[in-house]
């Protein structure tokens, strides 16, 4: 079993030291709630862009990307591009300018719920604030758990845990609490600035740690031609889209491109807070554009190792006998049965006894999430391995920190100041933000701990997305685009969307699954093709229902006077755009270039 050498530990410790020292060095600058919660609204566009990208690459996303790479091949590049690039460009052109410019010059909007309060009404703001807090803290806890599970499966801290005489559950909790404590330290000290500074570092560490895995892995597989020879033919071509996932082109564009992409990159305050911390409107718009340009290539860094894991030989239990000076040595390498039943470096899912879990067709079910992490151990020598693990830690921390800073802003602005203590002074808001970070991390850890008891919670993340983000995206889309839609409409739309997501999820069940968190917990009425089709279906259904209900209720209720909505919709917002035809404006040209580049890159793999 691989044990970390001191060189690995040194690099890991140095990474931890740097992230905490960013918090320490920025702590004296946290003099007001604007400094703490909004980074003073003075960061340059490139930093916001990299933080925007990094916030969207948490541990769930990165592990998921590696898993999808191993399960569906390079074609999943196209899926990730479809689910991010168009939405990011749309965010740059429409959403971010409106959110950034909303509110007065002295009191700009600080969060998405606050925008909803200005654009619609208080009840919409309160509903969204509560839902957002639940979603952000739950996903932060699940992210911590997902990474702790990977660390446990790699047996990285086994010797350390053994020295501290921790049980398996204790070791799992330890590997959740340690990164959580580091994140909490720098968020408490340096707020959003420290989080975004670290997101820059974390993005660089992610690339620096995973690029050697992709390069060395490719070398080990014998280069591109070698890779082609060892993995199934469909895995390098887009044809496998239609194979395992008959969602259809319309489903892909609506489900992945519109609902999943828009619900993430245009709606999620964890990401948008980075763009809203920019120094001016031009920098804020630039942030998603920079993120989109890099996002074309970044998934390849994660997908390629996942894919390469399939091409390497599966470890087997072996006995080698050799004779040395007349003495006969038997060397036995024991491989756990679940690993032996796997494919390449992708192990099978193991049950409590370590035996491989069989799927409906009698073949072992593979644990694709382990593909990318296993590759780290397979190809990185001591030294670089420390950097590779720092990369895993970096993506975990950037996602968790984004959730924590976003939720403390929402708590301080949209719950504490808006409802609990309306005449709160700036110092009190700042204090509320810090307490919210502490309480938020405790709740996230509790969610992570609950996940160690019940594996179902890991699958609940996609359901939470369908319940919270998909209806909110519909509401925001209508609210940003047109003045006619009303507060009653938005509130009714969000509630209807939530109910729709739950109803859809409760009545559909992918074939071969048991009713429960996988779906079908009300009554099984239809069978989507896969769990991915079910998740996309629930989110899309919630989005469409929310859209329709918002429109219908808005048309039946009285709109607010136009003067009150100045600067809150795309038509009236001070977007800071250069005037003139679209082909003369730099941001639209950049968006078109990025879109064409994304299409060109993905055509190479189709």
């Amino acid at each position, binding site marked *: 079993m691989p044990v970390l050498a001191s*060189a690995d530990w*040194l*690099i890991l410790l*140095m*990474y931890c030291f*740097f992230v905490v*020292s*960013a918090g320490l*060095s*920025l702590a004296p*600058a946290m*003099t*007001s709630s*604007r*400094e703490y919660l909004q980074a*003073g*609204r*003075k960061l340059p566009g490139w*930093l916001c862009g990299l933080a925007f990208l990094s916030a969207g690459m948490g541990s769930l996303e990165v592990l998921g990307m590696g898993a999808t790479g191993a399960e569906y091949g390079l074609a999943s590049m196209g899926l990730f591009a479809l689910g991010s690039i168009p939405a990011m460009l749309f965010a740059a052109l429409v959403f971010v300018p409106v959110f950034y410019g909303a*509110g*007065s*010059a*002295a*009191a*700009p909007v600080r969060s998405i719920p606050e925008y909803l*309060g*200005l654009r619609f009404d*208080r009840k919409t703001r309160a509903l969204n604030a509560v839902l957002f807090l639940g979603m952000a803290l739950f996903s932060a806890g699940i992210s911590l758990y997902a990474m702790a599970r990977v660390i446990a499966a790699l047996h990285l801290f086994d010797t350390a845990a053994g020295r501290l005489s921790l049980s398996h559950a204790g070791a799992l909790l330890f590997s959740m609490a340690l990164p959580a404590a580091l994140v909490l330290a720098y968020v408490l000290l340096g707020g959003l*600035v420290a989080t*975004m*500074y670290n997101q*820059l*570092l974390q993005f*660089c*560490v992610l690339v*620096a740690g995973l690029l*050697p895995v992709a390069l*060395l892995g490719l*070398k*080990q597989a014998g280069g591109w031609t070698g890779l082609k020879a060892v993995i199934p033919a469909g895995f390098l071509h887009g044809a496998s889209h239609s194979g395992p996932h008959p969602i259809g082109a319309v489903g892909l564009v609506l489900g992945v491109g519109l609902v999943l992409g828009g619900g993430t990159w245009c709606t999620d305050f964890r990401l948008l807070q980075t763009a809203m911390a920019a*120094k001016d409107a031009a920098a804020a718009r630039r942030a998603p554009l920079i993120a989109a340009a890099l996002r074309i290539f970044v998934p390849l860094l994660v997908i390629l190792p996942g894919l390469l894991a399939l091409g390497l030989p599966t470890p087997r239990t072996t006995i080698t006998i050799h004779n040395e000076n007349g003495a006969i040595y038997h060397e036995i390498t024991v491989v756990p049965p679940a690993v032996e039943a796997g494919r390449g470096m992708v192990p099978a899912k193991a049950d409590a006894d370590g035996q491989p879990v069989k799927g409906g067709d009698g073949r072992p079910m593979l644990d694709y999430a382990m593909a990318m992490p296993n590759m780290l151990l*397979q*190809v*990185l*020598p*001591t*030294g*670089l391995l420390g*950097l590779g693990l720092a990369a895993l830690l970096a993506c975990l921390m950037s996602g968790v920190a984004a959730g924590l800073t976003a939720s403390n802003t929402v708590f301080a602005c949209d719950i504490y*100041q*808006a409802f609990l203590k*309306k*005449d709160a*002074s*700036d110092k009190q808001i700042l204090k509320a933000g810090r307490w919210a970070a502490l309480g938020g991390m405790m709740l996230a850890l509790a969610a992570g701990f609950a996940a160690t008891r019940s594996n179902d919670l890991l699958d609940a993340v996609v359901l939470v997305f369908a319940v919270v983000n998909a209806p909110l995206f519909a509401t925001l889309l209508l609210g940003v685009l047109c003045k006619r839609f009303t507060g009653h409409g938005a509130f009714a739309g969000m509630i209807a969307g939530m109910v729709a997501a739950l109803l859809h999820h409760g009545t559909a069940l992918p074939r071969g699954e048991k009713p429960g968190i996988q779906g079908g917990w009300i009554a099984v009425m239809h069978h989507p093709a896969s769990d991915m089709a079910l998740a996309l279906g629930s989110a899309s259904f919630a989005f469409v229902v929310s859209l329709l209900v918002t429109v219908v209720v808005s048309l039946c209720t009285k709109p607010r006077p136009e003067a009150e909505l100045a600067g809150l919709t795309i038509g009236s917002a001070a977007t800071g755009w250069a005037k003139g035809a679209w082909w003369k404006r730099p941001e639209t040209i950049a968006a078109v270039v990025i879109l064409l580049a994304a299409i060109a890159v993905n055509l190479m793999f189709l």
Partner: protein
Amino acid sequence: MAKKAAADLTTKPAISSVIHVDARIAVGMFFALTGTILAAFGLSTRDRVEVYARSLGIDANLWWGLALLAFGIVMLAFGRRGQAKMERPANRE
């Protein structure tokens, strides 16, 4: 409610005057240090075959360490330039 919040903050300037350290300096320092450590470790272990069996005999630590060191130095240079620009009195307002 929004108006009240606005009244609260009117006494404060929209853009605060606190100056942070340029973010690239920390990144540059991290990569310069990490690169140096990796390259030094790579140099000291370059003759040990068993360390580099996983990377097919390539001394990946040395080469990647040097690449990271170069990246760190470039980031430091950019960071110092950005810092000087930020601290110039004309930009302080």
